[in-house]
C-alpha cells in the first residue's frame, strides 16, 4: 500500500471511531450499541476468521488435489508449494493426512482438465 492509501485508510478509521463518540447516540439497548463496538468487532472478528479458517483448513479440511481420484493423477512434484502470498503452502499434511489414499503425488490432472475445459466452454 502506498503512503497515500495508507493515510486514507488511517483517516477513515480514525474518523469513523471519532464519529461514533461525537455523533447522535441512542440509549444502549444491545451489546453492540456500545461506542465503536463495530470497529473492535471488525478487527477482532476478521483476525479470528483468518486464523480459525486457516487452522481448520490445515489440520482437518485441506487435502491434496488428487484426494478423490488418485488413479488419474500423473505424478508431478513441486506443485504443492506456491511462492508469493501463501507462505504456508506445502504443509506436512498436504498428501499424507489421516486416511489419505494418495501418496505424495502432485496434482496436475485437475489443472489440465480445467485448462482443457476452459478453452471449449463458451
Amino acid at each position, binding site marked *: 500500500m502506498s503512503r497515500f492509501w495508507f493515510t486514507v485508510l488511517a483517516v477513515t478509521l480514525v474518523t469513523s471511531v471519532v464519529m461514533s463518540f461525537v455523533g*447522535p447516540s441512542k440509549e444502549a439497548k444491545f451489546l453492540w450499541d456500545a461506542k465503536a463496538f463495530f470497529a473492535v468487532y471488525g478487527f477482532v472478528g476478521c483476525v479470528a476468521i*483468518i486464523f480459525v479458517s486457516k487452522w481448520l483448513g490445515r489440520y482437518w*479440511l485441506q487435502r491434496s*488435489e488428487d484426494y478423490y481420484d488418485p488413479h488419474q493423477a500423473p505424478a508431478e512434484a513441486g506443485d504443492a508449494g506456491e511462492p508469493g502470498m501463501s507462505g504456508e503452502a506445502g504443509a506436512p499434511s498436504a498428501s499424507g493426512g489421516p486416511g489419505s489414499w494418495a501418496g505424495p503425488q502432485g496434482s496436475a490432472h485437475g489443472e489440465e482438465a480445467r485448462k482443457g475445459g476452459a478453452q471449449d466452454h463458451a
Partner: protein
Amino acid sequence: MGKRLGKGARRTMPEHLPPFLPFFLGALVLPFLPRVVRGWAFLLPPLGVLWLLSGLEAGTSLSLSFLLWEMEPLRVDRLSLLFGWVFAMAAFVGGVYALHLRDTGQQVSALLYAGSALGAVFAGDLLTLFVFWEVMALTSAYLVWARRTDVSRASGMRYIYVHLMGGAILLAGIVLHGVESGSLAFGLFETRTTAAWLILVGFALNAAVPPLHAWLADAYPEATVTGAVFMSAFTTKTAVYALARGFWGWEILVVAGAASALVAMVYSLITNDIRRVLAYLVMGQVGFMVVGVGLGSQMGVNGAVAHAFAGVLYKGLLFMAAGAVIHATGRSRLSDLGGLGRSLPTVLPFYMVGALGIAGFPFFAGFVSKGIILDAAAYAGREGVYLLLYLASIGAFLAAALRIPFLAWGGEPKGDEVEPVPWNMTAGMGIAAGLTLFLGVYPVPLYSLLPFGLDYEPYSYSHVLKAVQLLGFAFLAFWIFRAKLGGESRIALDTDWVYRRPARASYVLGPEVVAAAFGVVERVVYGVMGRVVQVGRDPVGWLERAKRVGKDVVTSSPGTPEGRDPETASTSLRVSMAAGVILVLTALLIFFLRIVVPPT
C-alpha cells in the same frame, strides 16, 4: 401467513398466459433458428416474460383439475411476482453475457432452466412445483456437463444424483401431505408433521443448508463459464422462495441459516478455485436469507426476498467476472492466477461492484438488503444470530472483496497468454453492475416489490457508520495478515466426502472383490469340468490308466525321485472313491431323514 402472502383473492383468468411460457416456447424454437442468430434470439424469451409480468396482477390464478386433484399451475401474488421479475432479469443479463456462445444445447437448457425456475415460483400446488423442481435439476446439470471434461462429467453426475435424492424426499413429503390433508395446495405448513419435515428437507437441500450443501460448491465451479452464471441465479433462490412460502417462521431455519453462513465463511477462505470461493459465498448469502425466513416476522421475509433479489444481481455479476477471468486466462485456481491488474484490468471494476455488493458496503445493493435481515434479527431479539451474521459479513468481505482481488489481480503475472474478453461479456457485467449500484443508492423500486410494506431507512447515521467501522477495521486486519490467505493448490473436504470418499472403497468391495471371487470360482469349475470330461470320455480306460500308472512307476522306474509314488497314487484313488461313496451315503441319509422320517 399474512393476508397479502398466499391468501389473495383468486380468480380464474384464462386470458393470462403463464409467465414461464416464453421460455419453453423459446427452447422449442431456438434449435431451428440459424446458428448466428441463436444468441440474440435467446434474449427474446426473457423480454417476453418481462412483458407478461408487467400485465400480471397479484391475485391472478389459473386452476385445472388433474385426475382427482385440484391443480393450480399459475398463482400470482407479490411474493411470486418479485421472484418472477428477478429471474427474468437474470435470464436477460445471462443471455447478454452468453451472446457469443455457439452451443445450442447450453442455450436450450438455460432457457428450460429459467423457465422451470419461473414455473416453480408461480406454481400454486405442490405437484406442479415438484415437476418444475425436477426439470430445473436436469437442465442445470446439463450446464455442468456442457463443459465436456472428465471432472465436470463426474461433478454433474454427483449434482444430479444429489438433486434426484432431494427430489425423491420432496415427492415423498408431497404425497404424504396430499394423503393426510387431502389437498396439494402450496401454502404455509402450520403443523410440524412428518410430511412437512420431508418437504422441508427437500427445499433445504436446494437452499444449500448444511449438511446438505456440498453439491453447490462441487458443481458450480465445474459448470461452463456461462452456465455458472445461470446456476448462481435460479436453484438456490427458488429454494428461498419455497421456504419463504412454506416454512415462514420455522424456528430451525434461523439456526440452519446461521450455520450456512458460518460454514460457507470458513470454506470461502481456504478454497483455491475462484468460482468455488464464489459458490461458498452464494451459500453464505442464502444462509442470510434462510435466517430472514426463519425469523417469522414480516420484516424478516422482506429482508430475505430483498436479499434474494439483490443477490441474484451481484452474485451473477461475480460469476460473470470470474468467468471472464477463466475465459481470458484458461485458469481458475487462485494459486495459478496473479497479475491480472496488468493484463485484465477492465474486469476488476465490475468484479469489485459485485464483491462490495456481497460485502454489504454502503451504496451497493447488499448494504440495503442485508441490513433489513440484520435489523429483523435484532428486533426479534436474536442477538447471537445478529452478531454471527455480522461476522459472516466480514467473512464475505474478506473472501470476495479482498482475497480474490489481491490474489488474482494483484501479485506477479503467472502464465502469459490472455485472450480478449468478448464485448458482450463486458456488457452483461455492465448491466448487472449498474443494477447493483442503482438498488444500493435508490432501493425504493425494490421496496415496492416486497411482499409486505416496509419502513426501513438503510442510510441511517448508525448503519453507515457500522458498515464503515466493520469493513474498515476488517480491511486493516486483512492487511496485517494478508500473507495467510494465499491460494494453496489443495482442496478442502466438505460433506460430499460422505458420497465421494467411499466411491473407491465401494469400487474395491464391488467390482474388485466380486471379480476375484468369480476368478476363483472359474478356476475351480474349469478344473472340475475338465477332469469330468476327461474321465467321462473313457471311464474304463481312465481307471486302467490310473492302475497302470501305479504299476508302470513300480516296474519302470523304481525309486526315481521324479516318479509318482505308487502308494500315493493308488491311495489318492481310493480316498477319492471313498469320499464319493461317503458323499452318496450322506445324501441318501439326508434324503431318508427328510422324506421318510418327516420332521415333526
